[in-house]
């Protein structure tokens, strides 16, 4: 026993080390272990964010940043476990939709009074960005982006189907047109019209939600779930008609749907802003079937334009602010550094949050940026809720039940409504 404790103690000392000021950082986005410190050269979400973090660690005096493991699947479970265990990371990324849950319980530090001193100018944030990180009158994070669902387009397949005009893809404006286009592509190319992850992450949910919002409907209103209705039925059938006609495959997960698009097996991929630079880089490669890549705003199939959107933001635990002034100052420096590199993060394809970046030429000149300028105006999300994660999970399960297991739309929507109502009542 003694040996164990000595070994453990020795190892723990080495591990924690007596560094200048170490800032532990929690994030998702995936691992990039050899990102380097060049924030201009990295490609793809994982490597761009890691290069910014590495640069922060190298360039901020007296601060080193220690990135925690980047496990997507268990991220929020692990962050919660860390908070509950009293060992949250000093800074961590999160989605705006989680603020009600985390800030509501007092987990996050209110940064309102300290941002200016740290060199973060909140007046430079776009109003929507400030709104994203505000909760009950306080500012609980530093926003990093807006991200939204886009339509990623393979222009060669669209051209073969006669769906290109003036160098732009022709996109549907009604569910009927959607099906017609899809059949045109199938006949002309033999390939699927639309691919998306309908089987794993809630990308299919976000698609359905967008189509509900386009009919000015939502999944809940205050404390009442509103899922079992015509708006939802219209939204779902707009998608299932594609599966029924055999012009889209519901069984592909995230990686497979992406691969299908890159292999030229689908004309459209519904996915987020986070992959624009990655697909752009892939399309340039000789061996990748996708050659002519274009990005489009999520089309309006019903009345009002809408697409699912969210924000990534960085937060600091309340406990750090309360107990460790130096650690808090160091954490703020890291957030300021990330805020300063908003343009680099925007290279992923995400929309920037700072007016000064949004108006810059560097931003406008990013690849494909001019192709989805309408997205910011139609960005939407569900109403804030402490149970966002569980609600998304309910929707994901019931929608998957519709397209993967043939559950009837009526039953699935009724069940989803009952379960979401349960969650709202708890």
């Amino acid at each position: 026993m003694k040996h164990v404790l000595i070994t453990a103690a020795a190892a723990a000392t080495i591990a924690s080390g007596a560094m200048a000021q170490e800032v532990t950082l929690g994030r998702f986005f995936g691992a990039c272990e050899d990102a380097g410190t060049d924030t201009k050269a990295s490609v793809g979400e994982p490597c761009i964010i890691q290069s910014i973090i590495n640069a922060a660690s190298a360039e901020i005096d007296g601060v080193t940043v220690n990135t925690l493991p980047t496990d997507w699947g268990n991220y929020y479970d692990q962050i919660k476990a860390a908070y509950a265990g009293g060992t949250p990371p000093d800074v961590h990324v999160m989605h705006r939709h989680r603020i009600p849950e985390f800030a509501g319980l007092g987990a996050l530090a209110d940064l309102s009074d300290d941002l200016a001193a740290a060199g973060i100018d909140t007046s430079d944030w776009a109003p929507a960005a400030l709104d994203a990180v505000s909760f009950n009158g306080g500012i609980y994070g530093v926003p990093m982006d807006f991200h939204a669902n886009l339509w990623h387009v393979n222009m060669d397949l669209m051209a073969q189907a006669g769906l290109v005009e003036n160098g732009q893809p022709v996109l549907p404006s009604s569910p009927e047109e959607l099906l017609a286009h899809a059949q045109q592509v199938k006949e002309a190319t033999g390939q699927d019209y639309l691919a998306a992850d309908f089987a794993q992450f809630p990308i299919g949910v976000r698609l359905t939600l967008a189509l509900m919002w386009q009919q000015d409907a939502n999944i809940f209103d205050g404390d009442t779930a509103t899922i079992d209705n015509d708006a939802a039925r219209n939204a779902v059938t707009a998608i299932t008609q594609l599966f029924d006609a055999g012009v889209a495959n519901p069984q592909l997960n995230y990686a497979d749907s992406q691969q299908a698009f890159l292999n030229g097996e689908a004309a459209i991929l519904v996915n987020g802003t986070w992959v624009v630079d990655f697909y752009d880089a892939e399309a340039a490669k000789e061996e990748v079937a996708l050659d002519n890549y274009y990005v489009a705003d999520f089309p309006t199939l019903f009345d009002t334009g809408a697409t699912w959107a969210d924000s990534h933001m960085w937060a600091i635990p309340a406990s750090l602010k309360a107990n460790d002034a130096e650690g808090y100052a160091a954490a703020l420096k890291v957030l300021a550094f990330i805020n300063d590199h908003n343009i680099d993060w925007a290279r992923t394809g995400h929309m920037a949050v700072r007016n000064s970046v949004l108006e810059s030429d560097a931003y406008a000149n990013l690849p494909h940026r001019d192709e989805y300028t309408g997205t910011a105006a139609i960005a939407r999300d569900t109403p804030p809720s402490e149970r966002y994660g569980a609600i998304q999970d309910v929707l994901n399960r019931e929608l998957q039940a519709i397209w993967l297991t043939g559950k009837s739309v009526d039953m699935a929507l009724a069940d989803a409504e009952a379960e979401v109502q349960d969650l709202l009542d708890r």
Partner: protein
Amino acid sequence: MNRSYAWLVTALAIPAFLWLVPTLWMVSLSFQPNDVLARTTSSTALGLVPLPFTLENYAALFAFGQTPWWFLNSIIVAGGMTLGVLVLSTTAGYALARLDFPFKSAITFACLIGLMVPEQAVFIPLYTMFADFGWHNSYHALMLPRMAVPIGVFLMMQFFKAIPGDIEEAARIDGVGWLQIFWFVMLPLARPAMMTLAILTFLYAWNDYLWPLVSAQQREYFTITLGLASIQSNFAQSEGLGRVMASGVIASLPVVLLFLIFQRYVVQAMTVGGTKG
């Protein structure tokens, strides 16, 4: 060797090969370049032969990866846990098997009833308990819960019970104390059983997933099993299939080697643990 035997071996070689295929495939993929794997995983012989060949995945793993660090953690945790289990199990097992003391049968029963409690039924209270102590993200948090599981005590107790009593009596007559008997007489005799227990515990510790998942959030305390789970949950954004597979190979190498070297004890362990546990 007669003919039916030869037939039997040949007939079994086919399923045995199929059984090996998944593992071989992992090893083979780990030696192929990532950009090739992104396009096809069946370059040569369905991908079972690593051509085109590269060592890049392993080089990258050791140059930048966290895998070596996770690997080290697993060794510390599995080693520490094994040591702890050995100490606690031999002492308690000996006392329960060979010594007489008040309430012995009640205490024995109390110890063994714990065999009924599955780990999954107590991980939540354990989690809140360690949180209250501020113990999460530490090596002892990863080691302690398993040390409390009485399976080792049970195994050692069974073993000590089977040792003939005259050895002990002879020592007693010579005036040797109980602790000395335990240390100088019993422990050397118990070496095979301890070996068995050690291997069982090490394997368990190396492969445990649920408890590290809830207890360790910091890289410093990730075990290789946990680290590997974090890599595979985001294939799409990961460093490429080859590298992930290389991590898998590295994670498996020690346990496979351990198994091959100590096969005899492992087999014994399974038999004892199984028939009596």
